[in-house]
């Protein structure tokens, strides 16, 4: 499926631009019109790291008129193995500024807009609003779901790429014309299950393999040429030197772009992706039960074979949406301020749950610290309960 060009052509190329872009201009598919479209294009690259480095360099060289960079981090020596937009003398500098300087050297005709800040729920919509296309080169699940949801809500296309060790994946997501990221991966893995590049490593040149695919797709979308990687997932295996293209379907049950979306505005992505603290992770390590176990425990409690207190640490408005039967509500804030401890007795085991298992793990750390050593929490929370035990209740 080919798509119409994303960008209208700019008025004219200058003589300098004609000289600079001549190797594009003599490709019939690009030509003067295609290059004028690139000149008029505004592309936002999220992250000036592994994927952002080659993406920014090639987008700049290609003559994309406006390039935005969202990046809050500073250049570290360990970045230089793959983040080729930065150099030795940039160590310690803001990455966004270092990237801007490299782009100016490669192509001074590019208007670079630096967003020297962390992308979050408060700034994402206003930053995205000014761009035609987004290139996602972030390094964590929370930001990836944030980018996806903001792009879907704003109707913007984006080019996605992801890397780990020797494996790369790339696709184009555009809910108006095909699937989004949630159609491909409805939920993030629980924290700790999938290591980041910082934990697991990444082959430096893999960034170029995947980043260049992202630029390729960006240029095609901007100029309206070729077959976009929309509804396709490109999988690259650097060890086998194999590229494979698989189909990605638009999911009618997708939480944000499906027939009955449940996500209609930005959500709490840290909670969604289970960003738990080290203390919470330690507390939960050997003290997490499944909803199946909880279901058995509740039956045993009903028949007098077991004694425990089931505490829901969500907020009252969430408690109204769905509940695990037999729970009492003590919101997380009461654990953090100590008030909850006065309402609980160490004579009975305490079982905590929340929506997904993140907040309950935080509360579990507080309880363990206060001497409730046999307390546990429920992995997956009430969401898992609704999915697996009691589908008659609504999820949210």
């Amino acid at each position, binding site marked *: 499926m080919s798509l119409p060009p994303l960008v209208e052509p700019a008025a004219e190329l200058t003589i300098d631009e004609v000289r600079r872009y001549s190797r594009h201009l003599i490709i019939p598919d690009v030509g003067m019109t295609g290059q004028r479209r690139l000149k008029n294009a505004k592309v936002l690259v999220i*992250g000036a*790291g*592994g*994927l*952002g480095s080659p993406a920014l360099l090639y987008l700049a060289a290609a003559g994309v008129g406006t390039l935005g960079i969202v990046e809050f981090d500073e250049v570290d020596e360990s970045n230089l193995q793959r983040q080729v937009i930065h150099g030795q003398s940039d160590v310690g500098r803001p990455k966004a500024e270092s990237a801007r300087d490299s782009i100016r050297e490669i192509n001074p005709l590019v208007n670079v807009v630096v967003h020297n800040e962390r992308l979050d729920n408060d700034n994402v919509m206003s930053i995205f609003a000014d761009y035609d296309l987004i290139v*996602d*080169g*972030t*390094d*964590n*699940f929370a930001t*990836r779901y944030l980018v996806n949801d903001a792009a879907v809500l704003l109707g913007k296309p984006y080019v996605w*790429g*992801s*890397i*780990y*060790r*020797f*494996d790369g*994946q790339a696709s184009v997501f555009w809910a108006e014309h095909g699937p989004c990221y949630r159609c*491909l*991966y*409805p*939920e*993030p*893995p629980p924290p700790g*299950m*999938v*290591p*980041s*590049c910082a934990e*697991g490593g*990444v082959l430096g040149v893999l960034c170029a393999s995947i980043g260049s695919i992202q630029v390729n797709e960006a240029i095609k979308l901007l100029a309206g040429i070729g077959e976009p990687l929309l509804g396709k*997932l490109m*999988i690259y*295996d650097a*060890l*086998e030197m194999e590229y*494979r*293209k*698989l*189909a*990605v*379907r638009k*999911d009618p049950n997708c939480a944000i772009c499906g027939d009955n979306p449940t996500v209609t505005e930005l959500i709490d992505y840290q909670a969604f992706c289970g960003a738990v603290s080290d203390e919470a992770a330690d507390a939960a390590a050997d003290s997490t039960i*499944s909803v*199946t176990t909880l279901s058995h425990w509740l039956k045993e409690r009903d028949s007098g074979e077991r004694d425990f207190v089931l505490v829901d640490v969500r907020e009252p408005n969430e408690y109204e949406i769905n509940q695990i039967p037999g729970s009492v509500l003590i919101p997380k804030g009461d654990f953090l301020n100590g008030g909850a401890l006065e309402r609980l007795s160490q004579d009975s085991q305490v079982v905590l749950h929340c929506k997904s298992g993140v907040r309950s793990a935080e509360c579990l750390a507080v309880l363990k610290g206060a001497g409730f050593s046999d307390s546990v929490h429920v992995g997956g929370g009430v969401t898992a309960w609704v999915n*697996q035990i009691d589908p008659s209740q609504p999820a949210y």
Partner: protein
Amino acid sequence: MSVSVRVPTILRTYTEGASEVSAEGASLSEVLESLDASYPGIKGRIVDEQGALRRFVNVYVGNDDVRFLDGLDTPTAEGAQVSVIPAVAGG
């Protein structure tokens, strides 16, 4: 039915580094059982404790995501290629 299973980097710790292994089964669930018999523990990275496919791992039979076919009941013909595609977030 003998099928070929593509193993992503992240799961190759279970397959002694092999990127492609063979397994037996007429359906995806049988293939995963066979895979787990040869490489204990790998199935648990693909399906959860309740036996459902994990929602951050996609399994393809041929070029199609089994979520849009018959899930774990998706038939696997002789010589089919099963691919396990986990979510990764590195950038």
